[in-house]
């Protein structure tokens, strides 16, 4: 059998193993190792396995991931999310659907200190859903806003998915972060429009809540101070080239730690809780990276990525159509698979294709993060939906899964519009990095 044939067989076996619920990282590792061994030698495969694993664990670039996750965990345990929601509630609460708008805005702001989408959704679910229920919001709007808003954490820097993309494709993580800012704000705006339109069509979905005077609104802005300081330090450091991404993440985590201790919102127990949760998540992510690296080496030996790239490059169809197909594949994959796993699995194949077509690598990174962001809220996997369901069930808020899935549709439409905007106006992504 030809190397490409073995490669396709490996991919088929990998898909079969996924269906057994074996961890994605292990599947990629096993298939990559066996495939590589078949194509080279067993000893070669064994050596590649241990070296690839160790290279991932010992990579200085990847130390960024645990440190940014730590920053988010500390921010979560320090109650930053609650303060953000209070501020946005003061500004939006009085209009129809205002609490949902406040939730989405707070999600974007929290995404600026937390790079994880489920963590943002879980945090906001505990803070915002009881408030929205108190003011008579429909379950589908309340839970939909939290689940979809949580996804904004993936694109708003610091984003774990963008770090992984940067490491896999050897792109500057700082530039990727900066590229994510405008799309995140545009998507937030589109989500706010989606809520506004929903509440115009169904006024009973999101009744107006309390009205606050301008004096109280301005006073509430103090709730943004922590986030602004941390975001400014991290992003300015990266933008100006003062810090490497790892240093920016350390400074961010340290700033949250100090702010939490000064405000007496963090204690030893909460710090350890944050550290443990960080370790758990980081271990999972880095294992995924290690699995993807092993699998990537197998794919490289089969030459499938290069063959695919040259084949697609030779097709007589417009580059835009190829990109549309790739985006559709990401969307489909994102429905069944975790976004990180999906990116790690497919980037080695699609990245050469996209580069062959002459697209900007930073733009492509932001696009696929946005597309896979749709996956975190679409059935059947939709991790954010399950997170919100789990949190609301634990809080005895009784919101059905069906309500949450129905609630995300307006946000899905908004995301599709957002992706279309980035497709046709790529400068939205490339403008800020070009200033660096």
């Amino acid at each position, binding site marked *: 059998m030809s190397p490409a044939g073995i490669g396709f067989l490996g991919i088929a076996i990998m898909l079969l193993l*996924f269906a*057994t619920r074996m*961890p994605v990282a*292990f599947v990629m590792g*096993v298939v990559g190792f066996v495939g590589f061994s078949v194509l080279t030698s067993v000893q070669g495969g064994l050596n590649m396995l241990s070296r690839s*694993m160790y290279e991932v664990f010992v990579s200085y670039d990847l130390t960024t991931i645990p440190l940014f996750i730590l920053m988010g965990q500390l921010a979560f345990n320090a109650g930053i999310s609650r303060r953000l929601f209070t501020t946005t509630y003061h500004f939006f609460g009085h209009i129809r659907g205002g609490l949902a708008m406040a939730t989405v805005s707070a999600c974007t702001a929290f995404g600026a200190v937390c790079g994880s989408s489920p963590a943002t959704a879980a945090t906001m679910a505990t803070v915002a859903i009881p408030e929205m229920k108190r003011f008579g919001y429909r379950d589908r709007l309340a839970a939909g806003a939290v689940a979809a808003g949580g996804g904004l954490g993936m694109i708003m820097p610091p984003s774990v998915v963008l770090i992984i993309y940067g490491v896999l494709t050897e792109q500057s993580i700082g530039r990727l972060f900066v590229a994510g800012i405008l799309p995140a704000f545009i998507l937030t705006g589109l989500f706010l429009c989606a809520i506004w339109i929903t509440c115009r069509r169904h006024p009973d979905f999101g009744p107006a809540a309390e009205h606050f005077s301008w004096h109280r609104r301005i006073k509430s802005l103090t709730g943004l101070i922590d986030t602004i300081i941390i975001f400014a330090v991290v992003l300015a450091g990266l933008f100006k080239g003062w810090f490497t991404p*790892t240093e920016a993440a350390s400074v961010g*985590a340290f700033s949250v730690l100090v702010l939490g201790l000064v405000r007496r919102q963090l204690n030893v127990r909460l710090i350890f809780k944050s550290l443990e949760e960080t*370790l758990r998540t980081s271990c*999972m992510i880095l294992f995924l990276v290690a699995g993807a690296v092993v699998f990537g080496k197998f794919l490289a030996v089969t030459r499938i990525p290069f063959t695919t790239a040259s084949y697609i490059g030779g097709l007589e169809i417009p580059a835009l159509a190829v990109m549309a197909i790739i985006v559709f594949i990401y969307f489909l994959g994102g429905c069944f698979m975790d976004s990180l796993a999906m990116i790690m699995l497919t980037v080695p194949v699609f990245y050469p294709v996209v580069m062959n077509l002459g697209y900007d690598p930073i733009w492509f990174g932001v696009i696929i993060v946005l597309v896979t962001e749709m996956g975190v809220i679409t059935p059947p996997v939709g991790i954010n939906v399950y997170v919100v369901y789990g949190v609301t069930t634990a809080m005895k808020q009784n919101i059905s899964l069906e309500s949450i899935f129905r609630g995300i549709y307006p946000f899905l439409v908004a995301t599709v519009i957002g992706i279309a905007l980035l497709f046709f106006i790529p400068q939205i992504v490339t403008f800020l990095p070009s200033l660096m």
Partner: protein
Amino acid sequence: MLVEIVEKILARIGSVMRIGGCLCLLGMALLTVADITGRLNRSPIFGSEEIVTFLAVLALGLSLPYAHSHRSHIGVEVFVQLMSTKVRRRLKLFRETLSVIFFATVTVMMLAYARDKHLSGEVSMNLGLPEYLFLYALGACFAVATLTMFVDLLQFVLQRRNS
């Protein structure tokens, strides 16, 4: 009975490793900040990047059993949910066995890689730290994780037999 004793010992080792991992992680953040502060005063910490990297290796290695015991690794659930309980159990047996074999292979190869580095006398570029020590440590962490997974598998098999 023996399985339960081993499980308790492994749980104890796992919790000590978890605390070690937490301290390494905290150390990474604090050391980097100390280095930046030092840099501002024109006295950076020499080799801090290397230390941070090795601390990351230790932090992640030490968290392996903890991550496994909390079922942190992502899998595709959708298809398994459509299957009968009997098929699900068989699949669980299959995937856990395969996972143990995979982890055992990584453990053995990690230790072999450590031995190769030891024999070659390779040290880190700036501080001259013996890298093989970290590789042995990582191999040991993988060994504990493999044992933890193996004991879980054994428990599952025994439970199936008893039921």
